[in-house]
Structures are given as structure tokens and as C-alpha cells.
């Protein structure tokens, strides 16, 4: 099933300049695996060394933060939109 992934400007250079990428997958983890096969340069921005979601990135499935769903195991349906958001922070 096709899912649309929206990338923030800062990550597009590692995805051939694309703002959105369509990938197949039944869970967020599967979709990320396929996304990273296509664009391996994104790995360090999305996942930590243990393969979990990087702490400085937020991923929304439509209007919901996947950390409050099932994380990388969150199930996806055809037409879902995943938005990848960098942590915007400072002091």
C-alpha cells in the first residue's frame, strides 16, 4: 500500500531534492526501511544507532504523533501521509 512521506527542507538534499516520496509498506518501520534503501543518507536523521526513532525527529501519521501510537510498529493504510518533522529547539 502506498504511503506518502513528507520531508522537511533540511532533509531533502539527501532525497534528491524531493519534498514528498511515495513508498509501500504496512507499518512505519517497513516504510522507513524502503525509504532508507532508496535514500541511505537519511538514516542518521531518522533512526538512532539501535534502530529506534531518533530523539530529534518527530513522525506524524496524518494528525497523530507515532510515539503515541505504536512507534515504528504503527500500522499504515493506503493513502496515509507520514510527516517527518525535525525538532526545532534551542535555548
Amino acid at each position, binding site marked *: 500500500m502506498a504511503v506518502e512521506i*513528507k520531508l522537511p527542507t533540511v532533509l531533502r538534499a539527501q532525497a534528491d531534492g524531493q519534498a514528498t516520496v511515495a513508498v509501500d509498506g504496512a507499518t512505519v518501520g517497513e516504510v522507513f526501511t524502503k525509504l532508507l534503501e532508496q535514500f541511505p543518507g537519511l538514516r542518521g536523521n531518522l533512526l538512532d544507532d539501535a534502530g529506534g526513532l531518533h530523539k530529534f525527529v518527530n513522525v506524524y501519521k496524518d494528525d497523530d*504523533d507515532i510515539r503515541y501510537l505504536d512507534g515504528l510498529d504503527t500500522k499504515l493504510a493506503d493513502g496515509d501521509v507520514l510527516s517527518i518533522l*525535525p525538532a*526545532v529547539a*534551542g*535555548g
Partner: protein
Amino acid sequence: MPAFAQPTLRLTERQYATIIGSCYDGLPDEACGLLVGPLSAAGEPTGAVSEARPCRNADASARTYTVDSRDLLAAMRAAESRGDEIVGVWHSHTHTDAYPSPTDVRQAVDPAWLYVIVSLRDLAPVLRAYRIRRGEIAEVPVELDRG
């Protein structure tokens, strides 16, 4: 001056008032918000701002800020709907200069963005803008469009 000390950030009076007002509204905590605007053909902010969007500080702290991710998502959608992008972020320094702190430099998320800092230390607010690239800080000019 580093080569990336451009473009000039151009704010309307209303946008300037929105930014400064949000910083006072956020006291005693730091306040933050996002700048939406167009990108050039090269993918860089032009300096024009179509919207200044106050956001919640998820840290609710006088020392740090994190733009609430729901507000970031809403801003990205609003930007996309008008063919723009997020081109920068502002936050307040409640007791220090309008200059990037080591935390601001370390956590700067996008080298293309404009980083606006509003100091509320003195009686009058001070607004300055910067780019932060590979740990280097370059101040960029700010122009107020009095329309």
C-alpha cells in the same frame, strides 16, 4: 562577514508586532514561533515572510524552547498550501542578549533558515536575525516594511 550572511530578512510592521508581542506573551518563559515564506530557485529563503506564526514552547521554560511539534506540523501544512516553506524560527531570550546561545548553535536544525532572537533583557525589545551554519554564526540584516 561570512558569505552566508544573507538574505536580508524583511518583516512587515504587523509581523514584527506579532513576533515581539508573542515574546512578551510568553513571559516568564521563552517564546517561539515560525517564519513562513518563499524559497528562491536555489532553495534558499529570499528574506520575504508571508506569515509569522507564534507556536507553543513545549519546554515551557525560561531557559530553553522546543517548538511544539503539532504547531510545526500545522505551520508546514499552512506553508505548503500557499506554495511556501518554513524559512526560519524566532525565540526570545528573557535575560540575555539577542545573540545565539551555545545551545542555539548546537541545535540549529537547518543551515538555510533564518534564526531570529528577541532579547527582552532591557526596557525596549531587541530583535536580531542570524544564519547558523556548521557552528558559525552570521548576523543578517533586518528591514522593517512600513508599507
